[in-house]
């Protein structure tokens, strides 16, 4: 009778809805990991761009005698306050990724096993008789299953609430990151500022390199250093831009897919898979390009 009652409870749990299905768990975890990585890289890269611009402008001051103390603001246009706001936004994206990962990863089976054991012990006391071993085992399994389903259902409810609540702001952040990592003709973001500053240094160093026999070896050494610094920065910006933009774009489509998947368990597309792949490529490239 007790077992029948527990089975009834299990049935009630089943019809009241259950946890995230395998597809939903995989997608949530995959999206969470990629978003965490993208947030982490963005956070580092905003700082790198600002430091890079300062270094380039210092070198420009060194080689171009026409530049005076008031003609260059070293960190323009990536001032500390603007950079800090971008870092804060990247951190919030990273934290969102972490949160989704935790939701998709946490396993509570051990806790449930111990809760089941305690429960059986106290039930035996309440019943004032020792239950047969067979019944105990069956009850234990049922309790763990019931508990797991309850926990998974709570997690699914939380995931739905969280993913729907974050949807709009993640999309907005994806658009902002796309612009900041773009080198398109019309773009006016952080990476473009870095690339334009480097192009300016390249122009100044080209002018000096093209002047014949007017500089000592030591002066020429500074110019060559400046030219190399500029070229390296320009190439780095180009490499980064492609992957970063693709990742930001995929973040947007993958975010839309995640919302669909979480609200409709049957929904499936490859957007999150592509996003995870894209971000992984970006992570790999970023390790190569790390300053």
């Amino acid at each position, binding site marked *: 009778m007790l077992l029948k009652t527990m089975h009834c409870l299990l049935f009630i749990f089943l019809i009241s809805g259950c946890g995230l299905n395998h597809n939903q768990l995989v997608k949530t975890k995959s999206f969470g990991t990629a978003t965490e990585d993208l947030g982490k890289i963005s956070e580092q890269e905003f700082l790198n761009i600002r430091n890079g611009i300062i270094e380039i402008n210092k070198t420009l001051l060194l080689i171009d005698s026409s530049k005076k103390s008031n003609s260059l603001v070293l960190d323009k246009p990536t001032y500390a306050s603007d950079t800090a*706001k971008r870092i804060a936004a990247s951190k919030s994206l990273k934290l969102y990724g972490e949160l989704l990962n935790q939701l998709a990863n946490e396993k509570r089976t051990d806790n449930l096993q111990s809760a089941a054991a305690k429960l059986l012990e106290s039930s035996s006391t309440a019943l004032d008789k020792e239950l047969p071993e067979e019944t105990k085992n069956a009850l234990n399994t049922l309790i763990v299953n019931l508990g797991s389903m309850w926990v998974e259902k709570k997690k699914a409810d*939380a995931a739905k609430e*969280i993913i729907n609540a974050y949807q709009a702001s993640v999309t907005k952040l994806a658009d902002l990151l796309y612009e900041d990592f773009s080198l398109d003709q019309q773009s006016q973001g952080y990476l473009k500022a870095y690339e334009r500053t480097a192009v300016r240094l390249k122009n100044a160093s080209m002018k000096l390199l*093209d002047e014949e026999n007017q500089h000592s070896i030591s002066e020429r050494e500074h110019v060559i250093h400046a030219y190399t610094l500029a070229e390296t920065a320009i190439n780095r910006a180009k490499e980064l831009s492609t992957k970063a933009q693709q990742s930001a774009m995929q973040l947007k489509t993958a975010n839309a897919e995640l919302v669909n998947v979480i609200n409709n368990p049957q929904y499936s597309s490859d957007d999150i898979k592509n996003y995870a792949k894209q971000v992984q490529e970006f992570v790999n490239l970023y390790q190569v390009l790390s300053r």
Partner: protein
Amino acid sequence: MMTTLGKELHQTISDLEYIRDTQKPPPPAVYSILDQLYALQIVLIDAAIQKATVEYVNATAAMENAAKETRQAIDDLKKLESAIEKIGVAIEKVAPLLALAI
């Protein structure tokens, strides 16, 4: 307005860079004009970055709002252990009734 200016600036810079890179030696003024135009591009980018910063602040605030809205659900999950124990307590309470049924 800004976009048109940016487009025209981009085109002028491309033309001057072409002269600089194809004529050897290029007219000396090309380098300094280019320097000024690059500086102007950076001024335009500066304005765009300031504007985008406001949007970043809004987006971060929206993320924080989402976090606040869902804090209850997250807190609930963090309390899973105690919740699991509560199931135990609940079943323990009905155990005497179940005993009658056995």
